[in-house]
């Protein structure tokens, strides 16, 4: 068992969820409540990681984060280290390729709130912030929870993009998924099986918990 890789995967998944929570709420709420020209394009851009082969997506991110790109240069100037083949770059890539997993369930969650209920919040004297905290978030909660769990589990399992952007540097960019691949390449099937089982257990537990929790909330709201 490669504990370093597991800890790195968990840290990557946890940080991705932490960053995506506010980003997803803002984007999901915006897309749920507003109609504007080009909305379809924005939704398509967010959904792109779902359909693009991970290697293609990873290749574009690698180019975009590279030392020759404006993003790479900015990062180098601001933090004194490159983006590619570092944990920071991996985290940034993870946030981008998890956008559809975070935004879409949250958008559906906000869309499910009847517009009159939001109007009622305003007519009850709640400011937009107060309405977000007391009405929107509690009612969209099942969608938000689903988004968090999906992003977490998906980050643990992502392989192609991680390999393209991060490579396989132990302690820096080698995640469990990469470590499993390394072990198989080295004919260490026992270690690969061990880590695969653990990953399977974590993913199954996370998703089962979400389903159970969403159902309980659903029953409560009738």
């Amino acid at each position: 068992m490669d504990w370093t890789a597991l800890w790195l995967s968990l840290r990557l998944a946890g940080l991705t969820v932490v960053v995506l929570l506010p980003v997803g709420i803002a984007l999901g709420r915006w897309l749920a409540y507003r109609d504007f020209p080009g909305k379809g394009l924005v939704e398509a851009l967010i959904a792109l990681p779902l359909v693009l082969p991970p290697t293609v997506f990873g290749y574009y991110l690698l180019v975009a984060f590279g030392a020759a790109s404006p993003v790479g240069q900015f990062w180098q100037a601001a933090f004194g280290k490159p983006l590619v083949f570092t944990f920071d770059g991996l985290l940034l890539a993870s946030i981008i390729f998890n956008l559809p997993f975070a935004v879409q369930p949250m958008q559906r969650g906000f869309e499910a709130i009847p517009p009159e209920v939001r109007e009622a919040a305003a007519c009850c004297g709640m400011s937009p912030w107060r309405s977000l905290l007391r009405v929107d978030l509690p009612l969209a909660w099942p969608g938000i929870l689903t988004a968090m769990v999906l992003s977490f589990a998906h980050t643990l399992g992502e392989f192609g993009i991680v390999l393209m952007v991060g490579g396989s540097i132990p302690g820096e960019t080698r995640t469990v998924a990469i470590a499993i691949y390394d072990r198989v390449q080295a004919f260490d099937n026992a270690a690969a099986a061990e880590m695969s089982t653990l990953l399977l257990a974590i993913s199954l537990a996370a998703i089962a918990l979400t389903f159970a929790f969403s159902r309980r909330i659903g029953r409560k709201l009738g």
Partner: protein
Amino acid sequence: MTASKGIFVDLRQDAPIPLAASFFCAPGEVLALVGPSGSGKSTILRSIAGTYRPHGGIVRVNGDLWFSAAEGHYRPPHRRAVGLVFQNYALFPHMTAAGNLMAAMGHVRPTDRPRRAHALLDLVHLGGLEGRRPAELSGGQQQRVAVARALAREPAVLLLDEPFSAVDKATRQRLYREIAELRRVLEMPVILVTHDLDEAALLADRMVVLHHGQALQSGTAEEVTSRPASPAVARLVDLRNVFPGTIAARSEDSGHGCIDWSGLRIEFRDGQGREVGQQVSWVVPDGFVILHRRDRPSRGEHENPVPGTVTSFLAIGQTAHLTLRPHHAPDLPLHFSMPLHAARRNDLAEGVAATVSLLAEGIHVMDGQAPPSE
């Protein structure tokens, strides 16, 4: 108008939803906005609440400017003291009945909120159900929570958006009585949106008849339904006996006169300002169409007798709804209703000849073309 208590609304826009309506509602008064669906009444209500922002107009409450397009002034909904009861109540499903009320008490000290929620739920006869969530309440109970929540805000104006449309008929009758009782203790203006004329007549002091966002007439229910301002209003308030005619004679001082109705002379009483020879429309409400009894003369028999044939007889409950095709103008059917037992006693049935009188005091003359009859 600026310093007076009450709400003054004047809304103007051409698109996307045309609006041309102006009205005032005094404290304690119930004003009904009446019109078919799509007449703009809900848009007007939302413009008052601030959840809709029209292109032009003014909303002023107790001297405070809430909205003025000309001055670019728009107060967002959460800063307007409105209580709005939504058509489907829009209760917060994750909060209890008391929680829903306390959510509207941002202006009250937190320690005082439970006591006030309790008192308000008592007021709407829901004492003891504080801890129930909306899903655990019946439709009528949800409606009462919605009313209590609107009052919890201590609104400067109370807005009711078709609040009775989602409950069954028996519950609705009970809620009418409760609202009628409740309004005696309310000191703010109340604006009720409804498509139901009877509901407006029952609950409101005055009504504004709306069509395509335009206020066509305002007045008491009695005024609007007996003296509609135009054939369009007559149609909207479900007066079906609207006919074309020509002023045939008129007395200068009394206003009494005669209309030529396809060759039949019809006497009227309120023809002020009309000229002989003028094309007009005229209306006679159901209640002023009296059947001549066959066995003995009845009241008003000499007034505007119209002989014809009964072409439809429809009994709904204890009321008979009849259509009479006059002999002189069979394409202009007259509609009237009477107690079922009276219709039976007079042997009325489809195909039977009958004569009715149109009471002159009920005949109302209007400018404008009568809409084509159905």
